[in-house]
């Protein structure tokens, strides 16, 4: 297996969602799905473009799986429309859709061999026998399963089963492949390897992938765009970088990665400068950025990622924000350490530092008085 880089530099930027003329392959138009009184998906609008690796991210019960199952045809929207290539597909049964799904449980047919599992979908078409054989061989090679074709699913390891499921769902060369938590059953190391393989296969086949996951790291790694869902609503749809750097709500910021959230009162200090007062006797936080929608005296949340906060004993830098605190806890993660610091007003902040020194030479330890500092561009002011 050749090593694959997590982020290969693309020849030209792939961003069809920025192109107003681009035709989406999938569009959800005001789609609502109710199960009795429970609203799983709430008037949702979403466009997904060809060749995208699109991730639906959210905690369990947020509606992401329901959305995927509606796309596969196992659930019908209560109201609204789903379009594929501009065609309404609400009433098309799953077996007539050019969409295949890889199930979370893999759903491999236990009574069939690997070969027969992969050939299952092809045999339901009018494809020639020889052509089916060629296609299955190709799929086995793509998923590195050569030599396993005669095994039954129960004779395979978890990782191999995952590949068979992937091969089977790709065999019919669907226009869209749906993946429901495809890596959840694998251990961490295998999961990371498989993420890169998935990206590689997606690139090779040019299929549009829609993946459902609760694992934000997975979504960030594989996806061209990520949609964060909560309680049946789409909170934000953006590239992983945007989601991380510019979350549109506290929920999204908190869901993706670690974040410090400080609630306070906004004071406009200039066209793009805000000062946030959050406690008495504490200097206000200075933040530079968009001020649209923020009015004087409004309650806001200031968010800043731990890795953008510096922790030092002396505080000898000229960053816009500088506060004093006491180290309460240090989480040593090998390459980095997270310092949990309590400010004088009781507010907890965490700061992340790269461990450039060996652990025994670490300068900062528990109960030390430290300075936390971050620049005026490091954080973000959110109103919701």
């Amino acid at each position, binding site marked *: 297996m050749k090593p694959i880089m997590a982020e290969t530099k693309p020849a030209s930027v792939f961003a069809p969602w920025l192109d107003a003329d681009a035709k989406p392959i999938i569009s959800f138009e005001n789609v609502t799905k109710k199960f009795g009184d429970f609203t799983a998906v709430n008037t949702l609008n979403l466009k997904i473009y060809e060749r995208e690796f699109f991730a639906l991210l959210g905690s369990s019960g947020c509606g992401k799986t329901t959305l995927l199952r509606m796309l596969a*045809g196992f659930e019908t929207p209560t109201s609204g429309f789903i379009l594929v290539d501009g065609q309404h597909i609400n009433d098309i049964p799953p077996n007539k859709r050019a969409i295949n799904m890889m*199930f979370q449980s893999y759903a491999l*047919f236990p009574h069939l061999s690997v070969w027969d599992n992969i050939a299952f979908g092809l045999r339901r078409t009018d494809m020639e026998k020889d052509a089916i054989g060629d296609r299955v061989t190709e799929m086995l090679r793509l998923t590195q399963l050569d030599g396993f074709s005669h095994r039954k699913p129960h004779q395979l390891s978890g990782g191999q089963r995952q590949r068979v499921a992937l091969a089977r769902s790709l065999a019919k060369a669907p226009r869209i492949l749906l993946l429901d938590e495809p890596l959840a059953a694998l251990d961490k190391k295998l999961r990371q390897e498989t993420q890169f393989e998935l990206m590689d296969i997606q690139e090779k086949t040019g299929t549009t992938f829609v993946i459902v996951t609760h694992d934000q790291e997975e979504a960030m790694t594989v996806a061209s765009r990520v949609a964060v869902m909560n309680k049946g609503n789409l909170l934000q749809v953006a590239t992983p970088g945007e989601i991380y750097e510019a979350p549109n709500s506290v929920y999204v910021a908190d869901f993706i990665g670690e974040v410090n959230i400080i609630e306070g009162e906004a004071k406009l200090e200039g066209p793009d400068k805000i000062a946030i007062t959050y406690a008495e006797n504490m200097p206000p936080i200075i933040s530079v950025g968009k001020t649209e929608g923020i009015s004087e005296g409004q309650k806001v949340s200031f968010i800043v990622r731990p890795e953008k906060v510096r922790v030092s004993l002396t505080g000898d830098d000229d960053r816009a924000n500088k506060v004093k605190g006491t180290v309460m806890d240090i989480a040593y993660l090998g390459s980095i350490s997270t310092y949990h610091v309590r400010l004088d007003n009781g507010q907890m902040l965490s700061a992340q530092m790269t461990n450039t020194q060996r652990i025994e030479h670490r300068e900062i330890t528990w109960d030390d008085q430290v300075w936390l500092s971050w620049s005026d561009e490091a954080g973000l002011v959110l109103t919701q």
Partner: protein
Amino acid sequence: MNFRRLLIIVVPYAWLIALFLVPFLIILKISLSDIAIAIPPYTPTFDLSAGWEGVKTFFSELDFENYIFLWTDDLYWKSFLSSITIASVSTFLTLLVAFPIAYGMAKSPPSWRPTLMMLVILPFWTSFLIRVYSWMGILSNNGFLNSFLVWTGIIDSPLHILNTNIAVYIGIVYTYLPFMILPIYASLEKMDISLLEAAEDLGCTRMSAFWLVTVPLARHGIIAGCFLVFIPVNGEFVIPSLLGGSSTNMIGKVLWDEFFNNRDWPVASAVAIVLLLILVIPIMLFQRNQQKQQEAVL
């Protein structure tokens, strides 16, 4: 340690030898004997007091006469054939009735399943004989079924069901239904619902998904159920004698007649031995199916 291990092996073997092999050998011996007006009603009997000579004469008097008789009198092989036919047909009918029930049970909400299971097992709480007797009351010419059909006006004169093969089939399907439902239900219940979704996703219609996924996965349950019905029905006596007519010819009935009406123990024993030999084949197939299923689980 070794003694314990030996004990674990010896106990079940001793049980099998004492309660299965020894009785089988006794029946085999009787089947090779001749009928006699005596107690017990056959000869020779084993007499140890005569010593080695006695043993020799004892064995010299055994012969296959009764088996030859079974072969020459067409009553017997016709009864065997008729038993196998009735058993096969009723196994098939039981399967037809049981599969939808088992399927429905497996597809029902999990909270219902214990209740449904109870309903299937509940008839076992009353005597088998009473249940077959009550079918006589239902099926007879002026029984519940005919009275009801005449009352609704569907028929003018009562249908003759009791004392025909139809009544026997009804009785067998009714009695043996749980033996078919339970193994099929067990195999369907384990089935992952997403397998059917996967089949549909890959281009199957609901119907073809049923034939390509559900039925193959229930195969072991179906086979087990079929043997559990077929094997005992072959030797069934109560149902054909209570519900069947003079034309219903089953080997269990013949066996009864030979033992109790003719008091011909040797011929009856020969019939029993032949029945056993016929059933050894399906029993072996059944064992193999169970073994395969266990391997599949592992």
